[in-house]
């Protein structure tokens, strides 16, 4: 099967084209996925910043009741998987899940290790490094952001409670959003790319086969049948037409067959005359 002319012409083209299209599609998918994730992280970062700035006043006044309400109401929003505020020691002070309150977090887990990997915790990180993706206990895919709550002049000089000026980070806000809609979009994109690759494969194989069949294989078949006919001694002036090269070959074969026929007739005549002369 692979030794046939059609296979020899189609296999390399199909293989190289499909392979290259798949590589490019994979890179395109990866690049789009990165962009979508970057967008989601940026949105989440700004959401975290909004939460921090809207709770800042209640934190400064030490109104814990108000803060619980704010965290609870944000935590019940659609798509919000968790919302926590840790203090400097890693104790969860406020959480949308009441069971988590006053629990200590493990600093080696994802989301904490990024800052706590060295002997001294990193004070500032880029937004992409503050983000983490994981599957939570409810089996939901989550994209979480940990936003540090920095010390500022108001906090250091607050009348209610006091943070020394040398303390750079007062605590951390951890917000996790469901990535269900992002995952759905990525899945749809993946399927679109698979369909695109299949279409390229079908078009390349189908197109090359159809063109080869029409322009090469069929004319060669017709030429082969014509030459077989000539070889049987059946001289037919209607040689295959359509492709210049095939036409030229057909004409040459016809000429050769006619010359052979003429030579055979001449030979026969000579033999007949010889037989008449030799009684």
């Amino acid at each position, binding site marked *: 099967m*692979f*030794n046939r002319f059609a296979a*020899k012409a189609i*296999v*390399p083209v199909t*293989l*190289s084209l*499909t*392979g*290259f299209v*798949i*590589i*490019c599609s*994979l*890179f395109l998918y*990866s*690049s789009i996925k990165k962009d979508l994730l970057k967008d989601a992280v940026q949105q989440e970062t700004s959401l975290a910043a909004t939460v921090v700035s809207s709770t800042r006043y209640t934190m400064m006044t030490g109104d814990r009741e108000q803060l619980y309400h704010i965290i609870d109401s944000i935590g019940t929003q659609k798509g919000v998987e968790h919302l926590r505020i840790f203090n400097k020691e890693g104790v969860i002070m406020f959480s949308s899940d009441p069971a988590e309150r006053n629990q200590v977090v493990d600093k080696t887990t994802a989301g904490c290790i990024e800052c706590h990997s060295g002997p001294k915790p990193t004070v500032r990180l880029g937004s992409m490094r503050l983000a983490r993706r994981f599957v939570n206990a409810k089996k939901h895919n989550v994209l979480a952001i940990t936003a540090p709550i920095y010390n500022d002049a108001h906090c250091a000089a607050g009348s209610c409670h006091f943070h020394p000026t040398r303390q750079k980070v007062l605590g951390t806000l951890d917000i996790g959003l469901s990535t269900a809609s992002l995952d759905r979009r990525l899945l749809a994109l993946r399927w679109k790319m698979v369909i695109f690759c299949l279409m390229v494969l079908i078009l390349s194989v189908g197109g090359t086969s159809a063109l080869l069949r029409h322009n090469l294989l069929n004319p060669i078949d017709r030429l082969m049948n014509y030459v077989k006919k000539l070889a049987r001694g059946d001289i037919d002036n209607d040689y295959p037409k359509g492709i210049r090269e095939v036409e030229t070959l057909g004409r040459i074969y016809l000429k050769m067959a006619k010359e052979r026929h003429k030579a055979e007739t001449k030979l026969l005549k000579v033999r007949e005359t010889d037989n008449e002369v030799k009684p």
Partner: protein
Amino acid sequence: MFFRRQHKQSPPPAPDDQRPGPELRRRQIENRIRDLRGQIRHSKWWMALFFLLSLGAAADFRFLPPISDQTRQFLGISPSPTLISIALIIYAFSALILILGRMNTSSTRFRGWSHIAYLAGFYLFYFYSGDLRENFWPVFIAGLTILGLESYRVWSFCSEAIREEEKMLKFLER
């Protein structure tokens, strides 16, 4: 492996009295057939080696010791994954064009070893930049396409040449 070179350097046909006898010619043909079959076998071995390498890459080269900080300091910062990906696309494109171009010559030599080295290089670059998991499939597909096409080219030419040699062998045995 050097069949093509031997082919190119073959001396002009000797005069009738100096031509090798049928036994010698038969042996020469058999040797050529063995060489050609060796080329096909070679291409399969290189493919197997690439699959082994890819298995290691799929496991994120966990069996290798982690790169020490000293080595990282010595090697410097890795190129960004985007740059490596651009290099991979350019490499895949050029390699495919070169292999397709080589199909016009009747070279029976398998030249997959250099591609294995390039592909291993890409795996290592992604591994060093810490992005191998994300970019494993593009390198694997690139390798599969390039080595697959090269193997097909070698198999196609070699099997054709083997058929011709076998025909000559049958003719000699008659």
